[in-house]
């Protein structure tokens, strides 16, 4: 394809198809994890390889890398069975064959033109409950995927346009929230129908060959753009490592280590020094690991597009024995925690090579908290949500207070909606002072959420991380505060023995749980922060006086003004 103008036009048109599929599902989904948290994604994928051609802009970033593996799984299945027909739609949630975890249900629809597959349309969404031992499926003590939920391999949900209602019945029978599942499934079907209509219109308008050529050319240019980015980096080998608290079963830290090798026009991401596969659910599949590296890279190099070409100049080394490359039935339900740590080490490694491009680590845990019980009427309720924290300080300024995780664009439900829907009352919803990592540019603040139970009793589950290893800063910035979870018992307040993972605490009426989330890591040395800005942070309550002295070497007088002499002394003492 030689016409660069038509290419720019088609790029916009194709992206619009994917964006519109996203929007349709968000509006019609039943469960808030899709509708509010946008834990879903849609795109167009290569007919033979499954490579990402175009992906919607508003879906969950992690799927941008993961979905091509899911589509490839369907392509291979169809090749084995040899019965692919127009109107077929596959459904599955196998995490080993398509990335992420069991909660993510993928629908793949081969899109036919003149009797041949032109490309694949796919939709993925995080369903509210897919069975398993724990409502909401974040089971922090799972040792096999069977304890995390049902596993559906790629099967035909539609045959030649005909819905197989048996499959729908099986799915519904395996969920605690069959209605929610049914609503989300319908939303995904609607999105694929719409995508197929729009793509057909586009092909009729521009011609199949033109569009096919444009897709190939966009891949080529994405690779070119990525190579241009790589060329600007200093060559060398950069090492970074970070840790997960534990796997929920065995209280031993797990290492995620990256050797980043920057060559003239390619990168090697070598995770060989990482821990081996573990017993608990923080393993991930290789496809998930690659997808998370893609997310980190796209956060650093914002101009690279969402297509497979970006990964072309990148080689991944992930040993099959690693916790970053497991197979069934190793549990993977807590994949979010592990990929956040992978992203953190990618940031830390690139920060050594090119600190002007990279931010401090974000809060680094999804904090999946659920409270579940039965109402007086006997009706079951499950309140499940992810909670936020701070973003890292960055070259241009302080980190964002209370942001969403780098792998997602999720928003948090309003507490008034939660209180209206569930028997809980929030007693605090606030920023957490001192939680941002100190730095020339301070990390953003994490949050404090405190929730009291209004019903007789409830079970509490938490799947979090960063309880023992706080989010690090970069470029000599300091770490944030770690995650702290507290729950009330008749014998007083308690913390989970596994730091941020907890199963089935029984809470009684009036008792509270309290989640204090990490901030983001700092950027640059804290003692280079202007004392006036530290004083401002103290005035606004982002930083306490004690932390101002300890972390920033800034002393304030009784009125909150900078004590210049004392500050100079303190800063000098440290420098010496």
């Amino acid at each position, binding site marked *: 394809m030689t016409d660069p103008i038509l290419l720019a*036009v088609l790029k916009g048109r194709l992206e619009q198809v994917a964006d519109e599929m996203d929007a349709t599902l968000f509006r019609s989904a039943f469960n808030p994890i899709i509708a509010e948290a946008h834990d879903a994604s849609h795109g167009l994928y290569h007919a033979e390889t499954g490579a990402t051609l175009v992906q919607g802009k508003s879906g969950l970033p992690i799927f941008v890398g993961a979905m091509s593996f899911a589509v490839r799984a369907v392509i291979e299945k169809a090749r084995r069975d040899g019965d692919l027909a127009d109107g077929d739609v596959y459904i599955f949630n196998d995490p080993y064959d398509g990335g992420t975890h069991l909660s993510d249900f993928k629908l793949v629809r081969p899109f036919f033109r003149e009797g041949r597959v032109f490309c694949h349309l796919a939709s993925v969404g995080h369903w509210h409950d897919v069975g398993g031992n724990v409502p909401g499926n974040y089971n922090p003590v799972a040792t096999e995927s069977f304890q995390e939920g049902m596993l559906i391999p790629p099967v035909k949900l539609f045959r030649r346009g005909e819905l197989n209602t048996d499959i729908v019945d099986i799915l519904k029978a395996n969920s605690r929230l069959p209605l929610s599942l049914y609503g989300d499934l319908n939303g995904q079907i609607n999105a694929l129908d719409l995508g197929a209509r729009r793509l057909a219109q586009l092909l009729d308008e521009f011609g199949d060959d033109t569009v096919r050529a444009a897709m190939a050319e966009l891949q080529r240019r994405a690779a070119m753009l990525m190579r241009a980015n790589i060329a600007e980096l200093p060559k060398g080998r950069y090492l970074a490592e970070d840790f997960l608290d534990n796997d929920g079963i065995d209280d031993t830290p797990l290492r995620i280590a990256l050797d980043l090798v920057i060559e003239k026009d390619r990168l090697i991401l070598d995770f060989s020094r990482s821990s081996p596969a573990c017993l608990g659910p923080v393993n991930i599949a290789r496809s998930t690991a690659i997808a998370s590296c893609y997310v980190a890279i796209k956060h650093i190099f914002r101009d690279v597009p969402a297509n497979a070409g970006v990964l072309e100049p990148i080689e991944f080394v992930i040993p099959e024995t690693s916790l970053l490359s497991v197979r069934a039935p190793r549990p993977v339900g807590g994949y979010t925690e592990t990929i956040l740590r992978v992203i953190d080490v990618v940031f830390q490694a690139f920060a050594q090579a090119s600190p002007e491009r990279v931010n401090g680590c974000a809060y680094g845990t999804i904090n999946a908290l659920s409270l579940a019980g039965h109402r007086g009427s006997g009706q079951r309720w499950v309140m499940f949500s992810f909670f936020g924290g701070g973003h890292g300080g960055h070259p241009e300024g302080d980190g964002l207070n209370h942001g969403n995780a780098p792998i997602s664009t999720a928003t948090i439900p*309003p507490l008034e909606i939660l209180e209206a829907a569930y028997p809980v009352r929030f*007693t605090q919803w606030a920023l957490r002072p001192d939680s941002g990592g100190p730095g020339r540019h301070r990390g953003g603040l994490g949050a404090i959420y*405190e929730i009291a139970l209004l019903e007789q009793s409830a079970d509490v589950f938490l799947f979090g991380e960063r309880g023992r290893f706080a989010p690090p800063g970069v470029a000599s910035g300091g770490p944030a505060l770690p995650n702290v979870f507290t729950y009330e018992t008749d014998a007083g307040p308690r913390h989970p023995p596994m730091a941020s993972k907890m199963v089935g605490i029984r809470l009684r009426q009036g008792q509270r749980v309290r989640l204090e989330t990490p901030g983001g890591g700092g950027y640059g040395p804290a003692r280079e922060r202007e004392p006036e800005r530290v004083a401002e942070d103290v005035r606004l309550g982002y930083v306490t006086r004690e932390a101002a002295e300890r972390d920033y070497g800034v002393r304030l007088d009784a009125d909150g003004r900078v004590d210049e002499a004392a500050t100079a002394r303190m800063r000098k003492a440290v420098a010496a």
Partner: protein
Amino acid sequence: MKGPRASLVVGVDVGGTFTDVFFLDEAARRFEIAKVPSTRGDQARGFIDGLKGGARLADIATVVHGTTVGTNALLERKGALTGVITTRGFRDVLEMRRRDRPTTWGLWGQFVPIVPRDLRLEVGERTLADGTVLEPVNPEEVREAARLLLAHGAEAVSIIFINAYANGANEEAALAALADVWPNPHVSVSSRILPEIREYERASTASLNAYLQPVVANYLHRLQTRLREGGFGGEVLIVQSNGGVMSVETAGRLPVRTALSGPAAGVIACGHIARAAGHPNVITCDMGGTSFDVSLIAGGESVLAAQTSIGFGMIVRTPMIEITTIGAGGGSIAWIDRGGLLQIGPESAGSDPGPVCYGLGNTRPTVTDANVVLGRINAARPIGGKLAALDVETAREAIRLHVAEPLGLGIEAAAEAVIRVANSRMAGAIRLVSIERGHNPRDFVAMPFGGGGALHTGALIKEVGLKSALVPRFPGVTSALGCVIADMRHDFVRTVNRLLDQLDVAALDDEMGALAAEGERLLGQAGVGFEGTVAGFELDMSYLGQTHTVAVPLDAAPGLTGLGLTRDGIRAAFEAAYRRAFGRLLDGVAMRVLNMRVAVTGRRPKFDLTLLAPRADASLQAAAKGSRPVFVDGAWHEARVFARLELPIGAIVQGPAVLEQPDSTIFLDPDLRGEVDRFGNFIVSRKEGP
């Protein structure tokens, strides 16, 4: 104190650069247009200058005003120092937002709330989700907080309590206590501003309202004082973001409703002009320096959005005309990314320094530069009157250096590529509001207003497949014209949050009826004559379990026995709305009513648009101004040039052609034709038919 001769109605739209005034004397079948420079810092001065240029103030009966005072204060963060008094444990709701970030990719975002943390004070109080007051508010604690805010210099305050949507009693009690010590009327109470569930959206809207109160109220006070001093004895009305007008008193109390005042007036005018011309389905296109704004009118009705965000994290939740904005304006910069792809925007040269051809220091080519290079804009007579001439050569050089060479194209081909990519982005915005919402583009006409849109609408109707384009007779003063036309409107919302099966339908009927009566009462107080009033009733509904709702218009009208709502009627209305939105209904799933909405509109008299039509003695010959070369579809064409305002009714112009008028330029591609209708609108369509 209307003088016996006061019969003029005047619309005034104060924009960033110009203040546009439209004078209408319908009795005398006379109108006049004035354009004066806006006076930044004190908009009232330019406003009065504009008025005095066209009439004696004593002759004016009504002034209707589209204002950007509130919009600018939000965008530039120049509102009042504002405090918040809120529930203990929740002062950071405003700063924590909904845990979002400004961009999907890149983690470098920042957010500074308009109320700093030390001015957000907490008091003991709590209401539960069902409206039960768990802890009453202590008046002395509120007074203490208020004194502290005043000591910090706060000029406005907002009271925001958790679950106040369900029961505003604690907020009312706090307001009563606050009134003892607060020295001014700049107080916003969340349950009065927006009694709707979702604490962040309510808190943001209420605090932004307080933030704007002193600014907008002072401005309107100054304006009214100067008008009165000049002998004006009529009414002043302010355009709201929903396209209706409100009294000055209401605007001072609810300034957050003016956030999109100016653009809303433009959309209202487009709707009216197009309807009169026989086109009830319109997509308005407003191309400015940095952005391209589109809005959809279907069946004569504007589409309303429930909320908008002014920049990151500043949510204004109040019904407003839905305007979709993309960063592709005349000043948007064209550049080649490192993958070799031509991109337009989002970076913009704005209007200062503006495009390269302005010669004010920008060297990177913009969309306007491409139009100049292609001969579509007359470099010798730029619109707006700010510059004497445009520098074509420098624009050519910028296109050559930044677009043509990297792409290996000639300069003209490169400029045309810039236009093509810009058009394709604009077409994307039009598809978003039309095709993506289930509308068929063939049923719609594009209507450009503002200065730049008419250069591109021809191409857009081809690219999206729209029926035609309608260029109003005076595109540059559309918003001022809209002020004269706009109806008066009051919106109300209340959260219900009940399953349809458990809903007390009679109580809902009563409450919606009472809101409608309240709206009528407010209309009656405004001192404005109406042709009639209408009330619209709507519910926000979903299936149980969904978090997004669909707007469900109810077929209801106030009558002797209430509105006549029934459970079955509501169910049927929901199913119809849901099917329109998503195609398939869900069997056996309960339905939920989240909010009720009531809108009461007082219809203001509309004037006869034939007043704007060309004079009877206009002729095609007199309008023809020779020709000039224009580059299109890869070649130079000799395009005929016309003085647009001198074209007679019924005149037909074949493309390629350029139509010039003081505030706008219309470009007709070779495969397009245009015709002047009986109102003076210029209707552009394909020569071949769609």
